[in-house]
């Protein structure tokens, strides 16, 4: 869906739900997921509708993902890191996980 404008700069690898994806250093988690063609990062807790990052600037909270075990982080505000483990969130989070 999204294409990078230029293809320069160093890359790294993170995993999303266990699957490795390549990202550019300086990408946010949300940008890296969109660039990798992942079209939703969670489903909503009440109706289960799929959601994708939207505002990309920290205000809409659509981009929530679990990052290295910490739930409901805003993917658009977290820079990617080598080996980072991102998990999409389905519905309500389970307390204690």
């Amino acid at each position, binding site marked *: 869906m999204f294409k990078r404008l230029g293809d320069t700069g160093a890359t790294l690898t993170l995993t999303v739900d266990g699957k490795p994806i390549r990202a550019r250093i300086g990408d946010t988690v949300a940008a890296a997921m969109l660039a990798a063609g992942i079209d939703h990062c969670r489903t909503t807790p*009440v109706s289960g509708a799929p959601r994708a990052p939207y505002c990309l600037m920290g205000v809409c909270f659509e981009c929530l993902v679990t990052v290295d075990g910490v*739930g409901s982080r805003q993917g658009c505000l977290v820079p990617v890191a080598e080996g980072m483990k991102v998990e999409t969130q389905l519905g*309500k*989070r*389970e*307390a204690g996980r």
Partner: protein
Amino acid sequence: MLKDAYDVAVVGGGLVGVATAWGLAREGCRVVVLDEGDRAVRASRGNFALVWVQSKGYGLAPYAGWTVRSSEAWAGFAETLKQETGLDVCFQRPGGFHLALSEAELQARADALKRLHNQPGIVQYKAEILDHAAVKRMLPDIGPEVAGGSYCPLDGHVNSLRLFRTLHTALNARGVTYLPDHRVEAITREGGEFQLVTARGTITAGKVALAAGNANMRLAPMVGLEAPMLPERGQIVVTERLRPFLHHPVVTLRQTDEGTVMIGDSREESTDPRGLTIGVSATEASRAVRMFPLLASANVVRTWSAIRVMTQDGFPIYDQSESHPGAFTVCCHSGVTLAANHALTVAPMIARGALDASLVGPFSARRFHVQAAG
């Protein structure tokens, strides 16, 4: 405005006012609700949403019976609202807990319940002290620090903001006139009618029901009534939505129908609704985590404070004025719990023009005058 266009003017559009107004409309009254604007301080927008029985009535035994009556009426109240509006206020009554984090707290809890239920003439209902193992059978996720708790099968909860919206929807459907930005500044009586003065004009009605929360203190003397108030602040901490794990409300902590966990039972003397004392939220949250350790990894998404409508002794006030017959006060803390009573019991009394002393006599503000009580 037509002269005497309204049978009853309800002053205040919080939960108490709208529940009363809905009940009045059901009795066939032509009702107007006069309210402040969107930025008004409203307990009804910031409360904890319990429909709660256990612990109520120490110091005024009839309050226990009054609370049980509302608790028993609540399911039917919610069902009627659903039929009228199509909206579900998510009332549930699975029974609720008060949890103790030490043997000393558990003992204090047992003593308090005994004192409450030993009062002469108090309504009898089940409220039992359970040890850790018995609590754990119903709340499997409690932590090791929970010594036990008290359990009452009458306790429940509701989606309080949805209740507020549903009542407004129901009022609208029944043709009640709701006038926001109509803060009542003065009330006078002429020719058997009440004139309610606002900056946007004067409204005339045959009767007036004062349901303006803490502002009743200022309004009641205008019609020969009194409402001694002592507002206090409470704070609430809210987590992200979590899969259901807590199937009974705890007095300090409950999981809503949509999954968020609300934490809070604080009391402060402050009356600044914009302020928030971080230490208070932190204490609430840390006690919650000791009760349910799995909450340690939940994210907090919101905290707020709200001002409780509180009479000086904590019990409701219902009165009709002797000098200005037709003027009533309807004023209380626990306006969520008592919403069914206000709609189904108090409103019909106001419509008839007489409060039934056998039901609400003990809640007259005359109790504040020690000399007069003899």
